[in-house]
């Protein structure tokens, strides 16, 4: 027969064990739950960044992995993409190169990815991208393109007029040539 102090000790010891087991079991169950959900619904908001409908969409969010998935799937990094934005394109749908769009929305990772995975710049498009980055004040991106893109055409960037949308100005200038 156990004595009173022995019973107290045993009870306390069991209680102590449950103080440890409680959180431990809870953690194990939580991990099982989260990983089970990951296996069943990998596209759940808990595991995947918001779905990108297009390369333009992925670039706009600087989601470089989703953007790369489009390139990997065969989309031409030197082709054109349709973009539309209330401010960046004044609400108009315009066709633009992925790199220029990445510069415009300051998607730095996407700029690097495009440069690394097939975006080819000639002297003129390099200058356009650098000018756009400079006009927007994105010095890092301008420097990156200057250093790792093609040597830009040796013409100074023009100053934007009041109210002019930088991307549209860059496209107009490119079309004018």
């Amino acid at each position, binding site marked *: 027969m156990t004595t009173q102090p022995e019973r*107290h*000790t*045993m*009870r*306390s*010891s*069991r*209680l*102590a*064990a*449950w*103080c*440890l*087991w*409680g*959180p*431990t*079991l*809870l*953690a*194990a169950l*939580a*991990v*099982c739950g*989260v*990983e089970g959900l*990951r296996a069943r619904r990998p596209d759940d*908001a*808990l*595991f*995947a*960044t918001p779905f990108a409908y297009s390369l333009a969409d992925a670039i706009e969010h600087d989601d*470089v*992995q989703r953007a*790369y*998935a489009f390139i*990997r799937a065969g989309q031409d990094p030197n082709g054109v993409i349709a973009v539309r934005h209330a401010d960046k394109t004044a609400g108009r749908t315009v066709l633009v190169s992925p790199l220029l769009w990445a510069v415009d929305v300051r998607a*730095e*990772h996407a700029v*690097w*990815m495009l*440069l*690394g*995975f097939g975006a080819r710049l000639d002297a003129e498009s390099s200058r356009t991208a650098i000018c756009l980055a400079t006009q927007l004040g994105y010095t890092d991106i301008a420097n990156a393109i200057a*250093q*790792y893109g093609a040597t830009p055409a040796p013409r100074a960037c023009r100053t934007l007029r009041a109210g002019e949308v930088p991307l549209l100005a860059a496209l107009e200038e490119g079309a004018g040539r």
Partner: protein
Amino acid sequence: MHDPDQDPVAESLQPHNPLVNHMSVRTPGASDTSADPASGRASLGWMAVVLLVSAPLLVTLFLALWHTPFPISEAVALLEDVSKKSVESFVIPDASYYRPFYHLSLMAIWRSSSPLDTRLADIKLLHFVPVAFLVLLFLWQMRPRTGTQAAAAAVAMAVLVGSPGFRDNIELPLAYTAVGMPLALAAWVLVNREWRFWHPVAIVLFAIVAIGFKEQGLVIVPVVGVAWLMRAPSARTGLVVTLVALTVAYVTARLVWHGPLPLFEQSMGLGFSTLEPSEAAARYGGFPYWLYAYNGLSTMANVLFSEPTRGLFFISRDIAYLRVQPWEVVQLVSSGLMTACIAWWGIQRVRDEARSGWTVESRTFAALVVSLAACGVLSFDYSRDRLGGMALVFYAVSAYYATCALCHAMGAVARARAVLVGVALMLLAVTWQVRAVGTVEYVRRTAWRNQIEWLADLPKRRAEFVDRHEYRDIMESMVEQGTRPGSSEPTLYPRWLARTFLPRP
């Protein structure tokens, strides 16, 4: 030599302090289990329970690691080294970093005729097998026999996995200390077992391999030394003399072959800011020893309190500026509480067993103290979380004993104090489990960052290494593994929860 730890009857006759005697966890010693089959079966059963409870976390961790791309920054340079350098260049200790076994293992894998994916998988295995071995050996060392001990073992497992010394040592492909950690534990297991003729041979081999992977392996020497001083069954004088001779030979070889060493090799944290080696040399070159001491103490404090990190007091800075984040609270509370618990348990055990004879528990505490000191000494030049990895092994084993002791103490104190002890136990379990889950998220974040680096750094590196053809070839061959979809990605927990696990990215 008689060891009371090997003999339960003798141990029960010892005039211990009743509370401390009650605290004793009589664990590792092979003879305990073999002498009592029922106890052995119970032990196996509880080990299985601990493994089962820890399995979700461990399996998730290893899967996340497996799906982690090699980083562009470290991996390519290492593979370039083993691809173009000779065997001698890694064996002759004339460089600042001397890890011959690591480089030769990497060389053997990389130069094999297997396809690229197989070679990269083998390099991952070189890293993960020791980590898996560490986890299993750790469990084997604890060998819980009751539900309480099993609960303490599960918490200790979280301590091991959730510590910065573990996180930093699972970074691909830097397997240096990840190999040394299980070897240190294996040496510790053997040294505390009844003597067999092969034990000293195995321990010396473990030490050689660990040192060959990184100089941190030297930590095994003082650990065995302290076991010898405290009369561990397999720590005989011949073993200690051999290990000391090995250390002298290693240090002599490094000093003889090496040219003049720079005062500081890498950047280091000092207070709230980082010093580059040139700046540190300019400011402290006249008398660098204070900075060496600071680096060593930083590594030791990181194991005990998770602060500072790389010599930088991030958490203290955030406290000073009232910008504390939840993960910082978790780190401070968990480490502070566990370290206090270990100190309370360890000091009592040493004090009592100094009179009655040493057991594996007091030896473990002493091993923790000397391994911490050794890690501190070996990280004199700069402090990094991974440099505390060897001491972490003993910290985690001590955490097991200390948690068991705290559980038992709960039954030996008055109700009001028992409530406090219960709260402390609950806090320990909650915070360390959070940290263990944080390690999984840390690995995922690392995998995600590695992939971003492959996607975004390629043009820079192509330009930067345009003249290093070997480097460029290796890098280009690894682009696919670095950019392949399906690598680990961080779980997008709600912000408050994500910040409890890790700092803001």
